[in-house]
């Protein structure tokens, strides 16, 4: 990712301007948690303000208050010096705040273009929808931003990352004064991130104030002018990015120093645990690979390359048309998740909400779902053992929660992810497939998860890691496979892998 020239160009003069958005003394509590505690910040036209903090620090809560979704317990919001009182999202929109949410907020059944003009449908007299204009304007925005999106495609047919682009285009379509992005790049490829930064720089030049949330530090240093760090709902620091080093930022966020992000212990690689031969499915073409015990194997690919397809196929979740999958020498037949679990392989899905969580279920129930057999005596559940085990994992991963019995819905994204990871670790596997395991997870937790991945491999687990994060990929993997359009286009060892060659293979 080269630093774009626009980034430096527009960043000079906003210091003299009055804040477009000023927040003072904001507090917000949920039952059992003080999500925001006397937080203040301000952002000027043309400024990119990075909002940073660990999982559960309160970033999303702050944003939801600014979006008119949550009502703050106390504190004030001013736009251009005028105090605001948002009672619903429409108020925030009218005031010029446009939020691109962490969880994508599009209507799946609608076309890309219609989603971009949801607010008013460009309706003219008599409230009639102007379909032609909607498509024309959408196309215009795509052309300007350089997005390769079909205005008529249905959003539900798009990949997560394409949907992210639609969200961003929507902010552009709105001509918002203040654009807030909650982890917009968590599912974008490097090329798309570059695009996005181009877009942000253009917005900034137009005098739009931007609040940017991300757990990816390298992005912060590239795009942000100012960094605001929150911890446990409290304000910690506000500094120009230029005064930060990655270490100082992490220290503000976590409250301690993190030394090695990518531990890589010496470990002995054992027998082949996962063997895949000539795997084909609706979107995959003749994929072969293997993973040994004690090995971390990374999969890279651009958006839609087919990593998730591979992951779902080899655990028996999605059907295959051809090929042989063996786990520790045994065939995955019948092709089902019941069988794959029995053979000792499991998947941590990239789509937490729809494929992982039982949102209204308690933390415990979510955590123990795969390992129910361990708490079963003669078919009966042993609730005490279950709770005890769950407590152990909460401590081990420092999962932030009020009570084990609370619905998992109310946990922050990062903490939810830790619960889901615990689900498989509790069960005990020979091989685990981690599809974007760090999506939306803070640095501290990331470091813990990386340490864990290393530890699991050291214990002899075969780990398959699908990630869009190049540093993660290079830092953790013993070997790397590259996919492109459902085909296998490259294999690298830890030693001979370089970013350039991997990207090259990914577009082959």
């Amino acid at each position, binding site marked *: 990712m080269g630093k774009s020239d626009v980034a430096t160009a527009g960043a000079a003069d906003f210091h003299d301007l009055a804040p477009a958005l000023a927040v003072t003394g904001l507090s917000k509590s949920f039952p059992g948690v003080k999500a925001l505690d006397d937080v203040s910040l301000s952002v000027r036209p043309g400024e990119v303000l990075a909002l940073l903090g660990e999982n559960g620090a309160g970033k999303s809560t702050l944003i939801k208050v600014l*979006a008119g*979704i949550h009502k703050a317990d106390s504190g004030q919001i001013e736009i251009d010096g005028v105090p605001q009182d948002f009672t*619903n*999202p*429409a108020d*925030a*929109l*009218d005031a010029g705040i446009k*939020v691109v*949410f962490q969880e994508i*907020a*599009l*209507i*799946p*059944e*609608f076309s890309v273009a*219609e989603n971009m003009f*949801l*607010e*008013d*449908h460009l*309706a003219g007299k*008599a*409230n*009639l*929808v102007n379909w032609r204009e909607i*498509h024309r304007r959408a*196309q215009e925005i795509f052309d300007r931003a350089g997005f*390769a*999106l*079909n*205005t*008529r495609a249905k959003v539900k047919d798009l990949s997560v990352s394409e949907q992210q682009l639609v969200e961003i285009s929507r902010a552009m379509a709105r001509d918002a004064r203040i654009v807030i992005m909650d982890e917009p790049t968590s599912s974008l490829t490097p090329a798309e991130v570059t695009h996005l930064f181009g877009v942000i720089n253009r917005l900034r030049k137009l005098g739009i104030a931007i609040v940017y949330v991300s757990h990816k530090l390298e992005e912060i240093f590239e795009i942000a002018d100012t960094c605001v760090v929150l911890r446990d709902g409290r304000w910690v620091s506000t500094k120009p990015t230029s005064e930060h080093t990655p270490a100082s930022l992490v220290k503000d966020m976590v409250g301690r120093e993190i030394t090695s992000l990518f531990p890589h212990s010496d470990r002995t690689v054992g027998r082949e645990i996962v063997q895949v031969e000539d795997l084909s499915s609706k979107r995959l073409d003749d994929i072969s690979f293997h993973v040994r015990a004690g090995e971390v194997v990374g999969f890279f690919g651009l958006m839609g390359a087919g990593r998730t397809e591979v992951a779902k196929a080899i655990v028996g979740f999605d059907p295959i048309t051809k090929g042989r999958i063996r786990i520790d020498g045994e065939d995955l037949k019948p092709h089902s998740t019941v069988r794959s679990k029995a053979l000792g392989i499991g998947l941590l899905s990239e789509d937490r909400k729809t494929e992982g969580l039982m949102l209204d279920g308690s933390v415990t129930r979510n955590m123990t779902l795969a390992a129910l057999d361990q708490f079963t005596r003669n078919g009966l559940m042993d609730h005490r053992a279950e709770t005890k085990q769950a407590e152990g994992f909460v401590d081990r991963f420092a999962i932030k929660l009020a009570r084990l019995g609370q619905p998992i819905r109310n946990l922050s994204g990062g903490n939810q992810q830790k619960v889901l990871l615990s689900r498989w670790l509790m069960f005990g596997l020979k091989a685990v497939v981690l599809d974007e395991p760090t999506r939306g997870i803070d640095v501290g937790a990331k470091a813990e998860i990386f340490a864990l991945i290393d530890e699991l491999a050291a214990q002899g687990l075969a780990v398959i890691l699908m990630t869009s994060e190049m540093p993660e990929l290079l830092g953790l993997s013993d070997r790397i496979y590259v996919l492109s359009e459902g085909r296998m286009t490259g294999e690298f060892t830890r030693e001979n892998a370089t970013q350039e060659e991997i990207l090259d293979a990914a577009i082959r």
Partner: protein
Amino acid sequence: MPLSANPALPQNMLSRTLRKVAGQSEIALFVSLVLIVIVFSSLSEYFLTTRNLTNVLGQASIILLIATGVAVALIGGEVDISVGSLVAAVALPLVEIMNATGSLSLGILGALVLGLMIGAINGYLSAYLRINSLIVTLGMLFLIRGGVYLWTNKRAQADTAYLDSFFAIGNGKAFGIMPIPAIIAGVIVLMVMFIMHKTRFGRRIYAAGGSAEVARMVGYDVRRIKFICFLISSTLATIAGILLASRLGAAVHTSGQGYEFQAIAAVVLGGVSLAGGRGNILGAALGVLILAYLSNGLGMINAPTEWQLVITGIVIVAAVSLDSYKKSKE
């Protein structure tokens, strides 16, 4: 991105216009309808007569109106099964006011007021108090029917005003061919189609049903949208109730029983999703017509009622499973 690449090519115009009003599944439904007509035409000499084909339109008009309302509610992410009882209830003010005042308009007004009141209760409980609408309208289904029984003491209320205009709206034929109720229903269905596709409000209904959370985030008053969906649903059912009362010349306390299931089955057959936000009115209307012509055709070839029920059940399962099979292939 083939479609956006060259949007204005003239040879694309026809197919694009077609696609605008009808998706692939609507075309498939239409073909099925044509097939049904062809099959029964070859089995019964009376089937393919103008008289029979238009008769069925008149007969279907009642379920068509109800189903259109149910479809709007479903698209908005809610369900309204109180319509079966509503049909019977609204006929009471209609007939009683007409009998008392001799005015059809006042009667219709009375019916609409009651229908809207029921819709408002459904809507308030579901949209504002956020009680699951299936439960609300299930409760209302019982409540309204019981209320009708109490009000009428379980006696049908006859039309004693004998207004020709009242007789005509359910029984008359335009130009001696097309049943008036079919025309009324047709016009209303077209209007709803237009609203759902072409107006901002229609799109908001789709959005609210597709994802209420998202709709709220972009600033829609989702509760109001859903509330209005219930008003639409009950208004259309009220019109159905008025037409039915005209066809029966009375407010019959038992009428409309089971219509909620008939309507939902037809609408889903027409491709409207129970999950909300998906499907369209054209499909729903075709679903109604398919079941209506099927039932009429079976009657024409003298198939006993029990077979009609069995075959209808099988057709619904077959159609819906074919549809979900197609979707899984995509």
